[in-house]
């Protein structure tokens, strides 16, 4: 094992943890100075009190910086140019940004249907705005099969002005023109902001004379070197980190339901035989649908501080928080008061908890019997909402579309789950949750710094999805957008396996990490037939290094 530092730069607080050979040595929590990340990180290191900072092997950082910039609409304008071709009307889908459609069309095999019209290019109005260089995102339908048009237009624009910042859609090599467009747009839009953050991090680490490399946590729960990550991949690393934190306290092959109960929201994730469940589509951030691969996590608006309000039928559990629980000096009764009253937690004032709950009951029913019943019912309501979200996550997993006969004949089978609960209200609901979900329940530790903990213990993730068309003699890699010429045979078998291996090694070298337990999917071979003769094959295959943690953490 090794010496890891995990830092979570949140909007309000920055958390940090130092782990030595799987043992947590120190934790720290400092306010985030969003205008001065250098100072924030330095403060965090100061508080971590690491005796020998030279012995740090690795620093892993997760941040909400990019997420917040997008949600708060703090990204500079990007000019979006589309080779949208025929098909579904582009405006059938909601576009949160402006775009311009240009002529030029490819088909699903990457064959040119219609070349671009250079006269349209000459009429493009790309005027500078202020001092910022112009940002242009160019995305073509089926550009993940053939990037020719994107490259042609980029070359044309570069000639007009070499300082313009240009991003091409095919670098996001998955299908979905709409999401590819928005992903390319966002990644370019947040790149300046991210570069600045990266520089600040490096400055802070250098100021303390630490030589350890810095890695950034991604939405898929994996880390990549600071300089190699695509900025947009850093969104939603918070929920991913909390799932990873749970993994550090779990048997490596367990299937578990991860429940993290906060004051206002509860995050729920699913781990299947040690591997976190991925969302079936790319991440949605604000109005943007993206191709960013992220863990399937549900956030529901219920937490320890959710307000409980009296109604004609009894009570209702609201989805908002007004302040702390009544028993902690707040003005409204909450599930935390119910937990306190039932003696499930030991913080907060017992009399206040009782008074808060009593305010929900009519005066003639403010007896221990009714109070007890009410407290139980509040917790049951909370647990029901959590359970509904767990069910919806499980459904997402079980209803993943199957495409092959084999897959349909071997559906996802129900597994034996255990539940890992962390967060403020964890102890209070663990019993009720176990009963409702019918699983054993285990309490998670260090929930106040779980994002930093998860980041610290994360390992690199890696996906390499190959699409090879031996008749067109072209291959593509989804994750990197790499497109190249295939010189192998028309019907490759072992050859394609070796080819995928070499792509994996290249990619690993680029990301500067050692490949370990790479998992390969079986190849799909589609014979291409013309006039009853097989003329080639489309081959699909993939290799993955799934998200996970480098080891368990001991309390």
């Amino acid at each position, binding site marked *: 094992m090794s010496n890891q530092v995990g830092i979570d730069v949140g909007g309000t607080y920055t958390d940090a943890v130092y782990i030595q050979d799987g043992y947590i040595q120190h934790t720290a929590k400092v306010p985030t100075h969003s205008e001065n990340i250098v100072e924030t990180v330095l403060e965090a290191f100061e508080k971590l009190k690491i005796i020998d900072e030279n012995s740090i092997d690795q620093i892993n950082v997760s941040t909400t910086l990019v997420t917040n910039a997008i949600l708060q609409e703090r990204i500079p304008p990007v000019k979006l140019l589309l080779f949208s071709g025929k098909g579904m*009307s582009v405006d059938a889908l909601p576009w949160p940004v402006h775009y311009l459609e240009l002529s030029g069309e490819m088909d699903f095999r990457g064959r040119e*249907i219609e070349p671009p019209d250079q006269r349209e290019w000459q009429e493009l109005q790309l005027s500078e705005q202020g001092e910022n260089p112009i940002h242009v995102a160019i995305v073509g339908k089926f550009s993940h099969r053939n990037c020719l048009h994107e490259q042609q237009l980029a070359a044309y624009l570069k000639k007009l002005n070499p300082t313009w910042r240009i991003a091409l859609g095919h670098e996001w090599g998955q299908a979905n023109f709409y999401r590819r467009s928005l992903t390319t747009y966002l990644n370019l839009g947040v790149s300046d902001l991210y570069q600045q953050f990266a520089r600040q991090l490096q400055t802070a680490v250098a100021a303390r004379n630490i030589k350890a490399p810095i890695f950034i946590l991604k939405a898929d729960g994996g880390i990549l070197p600071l300089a190699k990550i695509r900025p947009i991949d850093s969104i939603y690393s918070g929920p991913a980190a909390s799932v990873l934190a749970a993994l550090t306290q779990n048997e490596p092959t367990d299937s578990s339901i991860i429940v993290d109960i906060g004051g206002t929201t509860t995050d729920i994730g699913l781990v299947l035989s040690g591997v976190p469940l991925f969302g079936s589509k790319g991440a949605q951030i604000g109005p943007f649908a993206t191709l960013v691969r992220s863990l399937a996590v549900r956030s529901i608006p219920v937490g320890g501080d959710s307000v409980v309000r009296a109604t004609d039928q009894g009570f209702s559990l609201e989805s908002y928080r007004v302040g702390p629980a009544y028993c902690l000096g707040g003005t409204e009764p909450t599930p935390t008061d119910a937990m306190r009253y039932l003696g499930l937690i030991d913080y907060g004032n017992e009399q206040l908890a009782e008074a808060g709950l009593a305010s929900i009951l009519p005066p003639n029913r403010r007896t221990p019997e009714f109070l007890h019943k009410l407290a139980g019912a509040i917790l049951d309501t909370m647990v029901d909402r959590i359970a509904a979200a767990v069910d919806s996550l499980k459904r997402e997993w079980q209803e993943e579309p199957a495409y092959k006969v084999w897959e349909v004949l071997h559906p996802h089978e129900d597994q034996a789950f255990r539940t890992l609960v962390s967060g403020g209200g964890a102890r209070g609901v663990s019993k009720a949750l176990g009963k409702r979900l019918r699983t054993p329940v285990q309490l998670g530790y260090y929930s106040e710094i779980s994002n930093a903990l998860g980041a610290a213990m994360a390992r690199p993730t890696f996906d390499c999805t190959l699409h090879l068309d031996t008749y067109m003699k072209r291959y593509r890699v989804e994750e990197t957008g790499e497109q190249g010429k295939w010189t192998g045979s028309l019907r490759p078998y072992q050859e394609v396996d070796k080819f995928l291996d070499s792509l994996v090694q290249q990619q690993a070298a680029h990301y500067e990490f050692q490949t370990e337990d790479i998992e390969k999917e079986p190849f799909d071979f589609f*014979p*291409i037939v013309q006039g009853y003769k097989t003329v080639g094959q489309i081959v699909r295959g993939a290799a993955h290094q799934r998200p996970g943690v480098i080891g368990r953490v001991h309390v």
Partner: protein
Amino acid sequence: MYETDRNFVFPAFDWSLGDSHPEREERLLYTQEQLFEEGILDLPQIKQFSPRLASIREALRAQALFPTPGMHTDSLDAHLIAAGSAILLGEAQVRGDIANGFVLVRPPGHHSGATVWGNRGFCSINNEAVLVNHLRAHLGIKKIAIVDTDVHHGDGTQDIFYHDPNVLFISLHQDGRTLYPGSGFVNEKGGPNAWGQTINIPLPPGTGDEGYHYVLENWVLPRIQAFAPDLIINSAGQDNHFTDPLAAMNLTADGYGRITELLQPDLAVLEGGYSIEGALPYVNLAILLALAGEDYHHVREPQKLDRPVLDLATLKPYIEGLKKQQQTLKPNFTIQNKAFFPKGNWIYSPHSVYYDTEGFQENRHDYIRQCSHCAGTVYIESQRAPFPQKSILIRIPFQACSECEQAGYDLWDHLIHQSEDTASGLLQNQLHDKLSVWQRKEGLKEF
């Protein structure tokens, strides 16, 4: 919960009838690429379902698997997934979970008939028929219209519902004198208890969008309206497209979108269509968009239609003549009662079915009990040439009258105890949803 959802499913990428067979893995690959690239799953009203497997029982409710179901099961998985997916979306539609659905599956099914000895016309299980009988048995659906817009005559579907007055079957196809399976003429109009409930509209090669839409608007739609079905199913074959290698019609992707818009099917079920690059990605997209209520006019296949299309002025008189001929045709049935037949008049109709995939012939002797109260019990003797042994299907229809039900059981009893030249049989009691398979060597088995 999903008031406005449209759904589709997408299975069987690892199944083919042979390496270079038209019904192969590649067939829906480009459709998948097109739909995913368009971002069709990001339309809020569209969801993709995971397919499910139909049971043998669900298949037997519509079709007899001869000589016994057990002798089929090894090769039926892909077919049962296609049929199961049809059931999945059909149930969702009837329950109101979805507004409509596109069962985007392969293999197809509409050449597979009431008795099945093997694969024919790429079909082994009739997806629509299995679906229709499931909905009638379990979800209280009574009247169903099936409009088959595949370029080939939907002979299997016709065979299964030929005697069923509660299923209106309309097949539009390229004239059987010019194309497989060589049937589907206007005189095929339904059995004695369901006369006029089968409508065949053979169209001349070269018919295009305009002619096709004319037939729909002036013949098919009024007929459906008069029938007032609970559910409309479109057997959506895509081989009318002008690029199809097996047929000679001239429809475009846009034309298919319009067909869908005109028919407003509750469910579309993919049938044939073998122009897998030039047509399928675009036709499937147009159909799906039309089902979703989206604009499909922007969908355009790359290849231009540059062969002559039959113009409407030429086609119109032909269609009107055909329609008149069809509507004025009078029934002409032969009564032939066998000695052991229960009382009543039994209409006899012999025919043979050719199984092109494996190259053998099935000889059929169908008898239908004429009945003014219900659809009438059906007795079918079937024999796979050149083998002498017969297999028998006895069908007691949905909403059978008591006499017809009794007649069915009398025939079943005779089959098991007295018929010596019979190897196996199936009793489809649709009235009580009971299915029994009998085999001389192994006896009776309830499904």
